C-alpha cells in the first residue's frame, strides 16, 4: 500500500513538474523555404527533392519537433517552383526571404538556378543548403552561409574516366547536354583520366535540355565507329539517347551520368533497350547499395507520395536533418549565422540516407562541401544494380577544391 502510494505520489509530482515546465514552453513555427524545379525538364530532380524535404519535416515534427530550451519548433515547409531558371530562382528566394520571412533555404536541384541564388546569398541573413546541383563553383566561392550535400560533377567525372579506361575502351563518343557547365565539367574530368588510361574522346555531340530527337547526332556517332558511348544529361533526354541508340543499331557499351530512377527511365525507354547501360555517379540511393536508413526512406517516401524516390532525392532529405542538427548544436533557430557556423562543425546526421565520407569527422568540409562515394551502377533485368565503388579520394578533392579560386 505504501509502495503504491509512493509510486502514485511520484507520478503526481512528475506530472506536476511536466505541466509546470510546459506552462513556460512555447510551440513555434520554423519556416523552411524550398526553391526547386517543380515543373519543366528539371522537375525529375526538383519534385522528388521538394517531396524529400516535406517527408523529413513531417518526420521531425512527428518526433516532437526541434526542442530548444523551453521552445519547441515545428517545421513548416513552403515550396516555390524555380523551373531551374536563374531568374525564377532569384525571384523565389527573394519572396521566401523578404515576404515569407524564411531564413533556411533548401532544395536547389539545378546548377544554373542555384548559381544565381548563390551569387547574392552571402549578403542575406539566411542559410542555404544546396542539394543535387553539381556545378563545382557553387562551393568554391567561399560563401559562409552555404553548404551542399552533393559532390561536384568533376569529382565524379574523374572517377568515371578511370573506370571506363579500366574496361579497355579506347575510343569513346560523348553525347550530352554539354552547354550545361557541370555536364561539360564532368566530361572534361572524365577525359583527363580516360586519356591517362590510353583512350581518346572521338567526338562530343551536344543536345539541348528540351531536345528529344537525338538521331542526327547518334547517326554521326555511329559513322565514327566508337567502342563506347558516354551519355551525360537529364534523365529524359538521356533516356531518348538510350532508346534511339538501340533503334539505330549502335551496339556499343553505354555509360552515363544521369541519376535517374528505374521508373523515370521506363517512361521513355524499355527495360530491354536499357539492358547493360552503366550509370557512373555518386553512390546515391539504390536499394542494393543502401543501408537501413535508405531502405526506410525508400519505403516511407513511396508510401507517402505513391511513387518511388529518385536516386538523388535524399540529398534534400539529408539537408533537413543536417539543418535540424545544426540548429540544435547552435542552440538557436533565430541566429542564421550561428546555424551556418554549426553546419560546418557537424558530424553526419544519423538519419542521413546518402553514404557521406566525413572530412576530419565533419559532414561538410571548409568549403561547405559534403562528399559521398562514387559508384558504378548497371541496368540489369529492369533495375539499377550497384556493381562497385569507383576510385575517389574525398580528402584529396577537398584540398583541390580549397585551392580553386571562385
Amino acid at each position, binding site marked *: 500500500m505504501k509502495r503504491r502510494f509512493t509510486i502514485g505520489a511520484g507520478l503526481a509530482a512528475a506530472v506536476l513538474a511536466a505541466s509546470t515546465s510546459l506552462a513556460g514552453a512555447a510551440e513555434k513555427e520554423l519556416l523552411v523555404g524550398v526553391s526547386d524545379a517543380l*515543373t*519543366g525538364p528539371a522537375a525529375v530532380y526538383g519534385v522528388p527533392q521538394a517531396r524529400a524535404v516535406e517527408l523529413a519535416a513531417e518526420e521531425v515534427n512527428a518526433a516532437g519537433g526541434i526542442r530548444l530550451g523551453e521552445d519547441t519548433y515545428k517545421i513548416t515547409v513552403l515550396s516555390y517552383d524555380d523551373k531551374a531558371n536563374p531568374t525564377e530562382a532569384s525571384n523565389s528566394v527573394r519572396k521566401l526571404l523578404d515576404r515569407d520571412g524564411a531564413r533556411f533555404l533548401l532544395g536547389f536541384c539545378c546548377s544554373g538556378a542555384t548559381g544565381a541564388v548563390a551569387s547574392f546569398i552571402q549578403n542575406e541573413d539566411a542559410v542555404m543548403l544546396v542539394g543535387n546541383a553539381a556545378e563545382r563553383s557553387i562551393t568554391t566561392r567561399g560563401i559562409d552561409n552555404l553548404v551542399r550535400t552533393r559532390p561536384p560533377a568533376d569529382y565524379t567525372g574523374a572517377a568515371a574516366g578511370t573506370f571506363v579506361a579500366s574496361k579497355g575502351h579506347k575510343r569513346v563518343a560523348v553525347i550530352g547536354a554539354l552547354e550545361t557547365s557541370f555536364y561539360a565539367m564532368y566530361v572534361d574530368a572524365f577525359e583527363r583520366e580516360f586519356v591517362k588510361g590510353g583512350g581518346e574522346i572521338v567526338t562530343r555531340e*551536344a543536345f*539541348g535540355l528540351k531536345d528529344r530527337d537525338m538521331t*542526327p547526332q547518334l547517326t554521326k556517332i555511329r559513322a565514327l565507329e566508337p567502342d563506347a558511348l558516354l551519355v551525360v544529361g537529364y534523365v529524359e533526354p538521356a533516356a531518348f539517347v538510350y532508346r534511339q541508340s538501340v*533503334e539505330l543499331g549502335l551496339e556499343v557499351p553505354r555509360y552515363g551520368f544521369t541519376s535517374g530512377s528505374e521508373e523515370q527511365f521506363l517512361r*521513355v525507354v524499355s527495360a530491354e*533497350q536499357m539492358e547493360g547501360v552503366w550509370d557512373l555517379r555518386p553512390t546515391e540511393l539504390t536499394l542494393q547499395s543502401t543501408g537501413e536508413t535508405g531502405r526506410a526512406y525508400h519505403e516511407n517516401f513511396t508510401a507517402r507520395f505513391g511513387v518511388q524516390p529518385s536516386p538523388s532525392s535524399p540529398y534534400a532529405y539529408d539537408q533537413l536533418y543536417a539543418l535540424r542538427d545544426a540548429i540544435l548544436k547552435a542552440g538557436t533557430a533565430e541566429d542564421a549565422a550561428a546555424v551556418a557556423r554549426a553546419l560546418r562543425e557537424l558530424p553526419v546526421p544519423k538519419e542521413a540516407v546518402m553514404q557521406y565520407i566525413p572530412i576530419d569527422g565533419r559532414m561538410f568540409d571548409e568549403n561547405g562541401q559534403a562528399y559521398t562515394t562514387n559508384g558504378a551502377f548497371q541496368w540489369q533485368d529492369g533495375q539499377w544494380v550497384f556493381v562497385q565503388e569507383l576510385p575517389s579520394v574525398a580528402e584529396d578533392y577537398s584540398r583541390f577544391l580549397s585551392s580553386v579560386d571562385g
Partner: protein
Amino acid sequence: MLELVQQITNGVAIGSVYVLIALGLTTVFGILGIAHFAHGSVSMFGGYLVYVLVAFQGVSLWLAIPVALVVGMGVGALIEFLAYRPVRNANHINAFIIALGLTMMVEGLNLQFFGADQVVIPTGFDRVFEIAGVTIPETRLYVVLAATVLVIAMTAFVEGTKTGQAIRAVAQNRDAAILMGVNVRSIPLIVFAMSTMLGVAAGVMVGSLFAIAPGVGEAMVVKGFAVLILGGLGSIPGAIIGGLVLGVTEALAAGFLSSAYKDVIAFVVMIVVLLFRPQGLLGGAK
C-alpha cells in the same frame, strides 16, 4: 553516303509531323484567314488523350487513336463556334487576340488535367527495320505511313468531294460561294474540325516518337508557321514540301554541323528561300 541517307531518313519522319501540323494551320489560314496559334496546344491535347486512354484506361492504341481524332474534330468545331465565330466580321486583330488567349487557355487546361510531367505514349513498337544499311525504327515508319495516308485523304476530300468543292469555293470567293448556294456558316466548322483532326494526329505522333509536355505544342506551332511561310500560305502542296524540307534540314544540320544550331540553320534556310521566293516554295505569285 550511308550516313547522308540515314540522316535524310531521320529527317523525313520529323518532317512528316511538321507536315501534319502545317496542313492544319494552312487550311485554317488559307480559307478563313485566321492565324490559329492554339493549334499546337490543341494537338497536344489529342496526344494526352491517347496517352490517358492507353496508359490508364487500358484502351488499345488502335481504338484510342480514332477516338482522339473524332474528339479532336469536335473540339475543333467547338473552338470555331465559341471562339472565332463571334468575331468573324470584326477587325482581324480581334481574331488574333483570341488566338493568343486560346493558346494560353488550352495550354493551361492541358497542365491542369494532365500535369507538368512529360508523357510518352506507349506503343509497343520496338522493332527496327534495316534496308541497305539504313535503319528505320517501327514507330518512325508508321509515322511516315500515317502522315502519307492522312495527306492523301485530306487531298481527296478537298479535291474530290462536294464539301471539298464548297471549301475551295469559300476560300476563293466567299460572296460568290454564297450566291452559288454554299452554306458558308458550316464551312468554318468543317475546316476547323479537319484541321484539328490533323493536329491531333500530329500530337499522337509527337507523343509516340518523343514526348508530350507543357510547351511542346507551342514549339510545334512555331515550326508549323515556319513551314507555312516556307511552303507558301494556304498551299497544301507547299505545306507538304515545306514540312519535309524543314525536317530534313534540321537533321542534316544537327548531323553534319552542330545540333546547337539546328533550329537556327533551319530558319536560315527558310529566310534564304523567302529572299528568292517571297511567296514561299509553292505559293502563288501576287
